[in-house]
C-alpha cells in the first residue's frame, strides 16, 4: 500500500510521468523482447514450442544452455555467405543512393529559396504512398515489356548488365541482383536525400565565396569545403540506408528472386517455413551484432544533431 501511494505521488509529479511512461513502455516492448530472443537462441526446440532453459530436475534447478544453433550457424557456410551478401547488397545500395542523392540534394539546396519547400515536398510525397505498392510497381516496370525494361533494352544496356553478371541473361531483369538493388535504391533514396539536404541547405555560402576569392577553382572548393562540411549528413544518410537494407525482407522477396541471398529472408524462412525458433533467434542475434556498430554511429550522430539544435 505504501509503495503504491509513493508511486502515485511520484506520478503526480509531471517529470516522472513524462519520462516514466514512455520509458517503461520501451523497456517492456523493445528491450525485454531482445532478451527473450537472446534466451531462445540458446534454447532447444521442443515438440510444439521452445523448451525452457530453466528446469527443475530431481528437485534441483537446472540451467540448460544450448549452443547448437550457433554451432550450426558456423558449420553451414550458407549462413556466412548470406551475411556477406546482405552486407554487399546494403553497401552497393548505400553507394548508389549517395551517388544519386548527393548531387540531387546539392542542387535542391542551391535552388531558388522560393521553390525549395516544393522540391522538398516532392521528395517526401512518395513516402506517404505505400512502400509495398511502390516496390510492387517495379515488378511491372522491369518485367518483360515494362517501361524500364523497354528503356534498358532500347539503350542496349542489358548486354552490358549481363556481361558483368548482375542479370542472368540479356532481357531478363526481374529476380536478379540488379532488380533487387534498383528496388532498394528506389526505396531508400529519400532517406539519403533528406538528411543531406537539411545539412547542405544550412551551409554558409560565404565560405565558398572566400575560397573563390583566394583562388580556388569551384571543383576544389567543392571537394575541400562543401564535402567535408556535409560529412555529418553523409554519415546520417548512409546509416539510414545501410542499416535497414541489411535486414530488408519485402524487397528481396518481391524483386530479388530465389538466387539473391538476404539475411532477412533467411530469418523469415527459419521462423515461418522451418518453424525453428532457436535458429531464427540466432540469426537475429548475429544480425544485431552486425548492425550494432553502424547503429552506434547513427545514434551518436542523432545525439550530436540534437545537441547542436539546442
Amino acid at each position, binding site marked *: 500500500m505504501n509503495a503504491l501511494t509513493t508511486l502515485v505521488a511520484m506520478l503526480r509529479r509531471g517529470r516522472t510521468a513524462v519520462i516514466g511512461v*514512455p520509458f517503461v513502455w520501451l523497456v517492456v516492448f523493445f528491450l525485454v523482447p531482445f532478451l527473450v530472443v537472446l534466451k531462445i537462441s540458446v534454447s532447444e526446440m521442443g515438440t510444439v514450442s521452445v523448451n525452457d532453459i530453466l528446469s527443475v530436475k530431481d528437485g534441483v534447478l537446472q540451467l540448460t544452455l544450448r549452443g547448437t544453433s550457433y554451432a550450426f550457424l558456423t558449420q553451414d557456410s550458407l549462413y556466412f555467405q548470406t551475411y556477406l551478401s546482405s552486407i554487399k547488397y546494403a553497401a552497393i545500395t548505400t553507394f548508389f543512393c549517395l551517388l544519386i542523392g548527393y548531387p540531387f540534394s546539392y542542387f535542391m539546396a*542551391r535552388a531558388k529559396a522560393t521553390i525549395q519547400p516544393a522540391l522538398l515536398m516532392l521528395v517526401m510525397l512518395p513516402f506517404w504512398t505505400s512502400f*509495398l505498392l511502390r516496390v510492387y510497381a517495379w515488378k*511491372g516496370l522491369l518485367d518483360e515489356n515494362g517501361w524500364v525494361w523497354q528503356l534498358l533494352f532500347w539503350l542496349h544496356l542489358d548486354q552490358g548488365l549481363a556481361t558483368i553478371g548482375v542479370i542472368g541473361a540479356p532481357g531478363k531483369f526481374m529476380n536478379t541482383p540488379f532488380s533487387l538493388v534498383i528496388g532498394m535504391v528506389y526505396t531508400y533514396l529519400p532517406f539519403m536525400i533528406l538528411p543531406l539536404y537539411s545539412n547542405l541547405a544550412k551551409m554558409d*555560402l560565404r565560405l565558398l565565396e572566400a575560397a573563390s576569392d583566394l583562388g580556388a577553382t569551384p571543383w576544389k572548393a567543392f571537394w575541400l569545403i562543401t564535402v567535408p562540411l556535409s560529412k555529418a549528413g553523409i554519415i546520417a544518410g548512409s546509416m539510414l540506408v545501410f*542499416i535497414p537494407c541489411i*535486414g530488408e525482407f519485402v524487397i528481396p522477396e518481391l524483386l530479388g528472386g530465389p538466387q539473391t541471398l538476404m539475411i532477412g529472408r533467411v530469418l523469415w524462412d527459419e521462423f515461418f517455413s522451418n518453424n525453428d525458433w532457436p535458429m531464427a533467434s540466432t540469426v537475429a542475434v548475429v544480425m544485431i551484432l552486425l548492425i550494432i556498430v553502424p547503429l552506434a554511429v547513427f545514434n551518436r550522430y542523432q545525439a550530436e544533431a540534437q545537441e547542436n539544435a539546442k
Partner: protein
Amino acid sequence: MSGPATHKKSTLFGAGFARVFGRGWLAGGYIFLYLPIVALVVYSFNDSPIPNLWKGFTLKWYVKLASDDEMLGGLWLSLKIAFFTATSSLVLGTLAAFALVKYRRFFGRTLFSGMVNAPLVMPEVIIGLSLLLMLVSVQKALGFPERGAMTIWFGHLLLGMAYATVVVQARLQGLNPQLEEAAMDLGAKPFQVFTLVTLPMISQALMSAWLLTFTLSLDDVVLSAFLNGPGSTTMPLVIFSRARLGLNPSVNAVATVIITLVAIGTVVASYLIARAERERANAIAQAQRDDG
C-alpha cells in the same frame, strides 16, 4: 566537365552549365521517384489479363475490387489499426519528445534516447520476431494476449512512437523557451502552460506526426505478418500475398485508390496547415499592432 571549372564562380560549375546540369539531375531524380507510381495507375486501367500488354481502357478491375471481400475486409481492419496506432503513437511520442528536450539529465537518458531512435533503422524482421517471441512467452504464462489486431497494434505503436518522437522533438527544439517562461511568470500552472502555450505552438508537428504514423501503420507488412492471428489479415498482407505470386491487376486498382486518397489527404492537410499558420501569423501581427 573541365571547361566550366575555369569560370571563377562561387557555384560548382559555370553558371549556364550548372543550371542545365542541376535541373537535369533533379528532373531525372524526380522521374525515378514518380515513374513507378505513374505506371501503377496507368496499368490499373489496362483491359488485358496479361500485365505490361496495353489492350485498351477499362474499369473492370475497379468493379471487381468493389466485391473483393478479402481486400475490403483487410482495408477496414488496417484503417482501424492505423487510427489507434497514430493516436497512441502521438501520445507516447509527445511524452518521449518532452522527456528528451526538457530534461537534460535523468537516470538512463542515453538508454532511453537509444531505444527511441533504434526502431527507426532497426530491420523490421528483428522487431517483429522479438516482439512475437515475447508475446508468446507472456501468453504461455498468463493466457493472454491472443494474437490478433491488438498484437499488431503493439508492433505498429513501437515503430510509430519512434517516428512521432522525432517529428515532435524537432519542433520542440525550435521553440522559444521564453514564451513558456513568460507564461509561468504570469502565474500559469505547468499543465496550463502546456495546453495554452506549448500545445498550440506544436500543433502542426502533432498533425504531421499523426498522419505519418497513420500511413506507416496502414502500410506495414513485416510486423503485421509476425504479429497477426487468425482472422486479422490486414490489407498489406493481402496485397503482399498476391504480389508474391506475380503481377496482379487487382493490386494496381487498390494502389490507384490508395494513391488518390493519399494525394487528396496531403493536399487538404497542407492547405489546413498553411491556413492555420497564416491565421497564427495574423493573430501575432494583430496583437503586436494592438500593443504598439
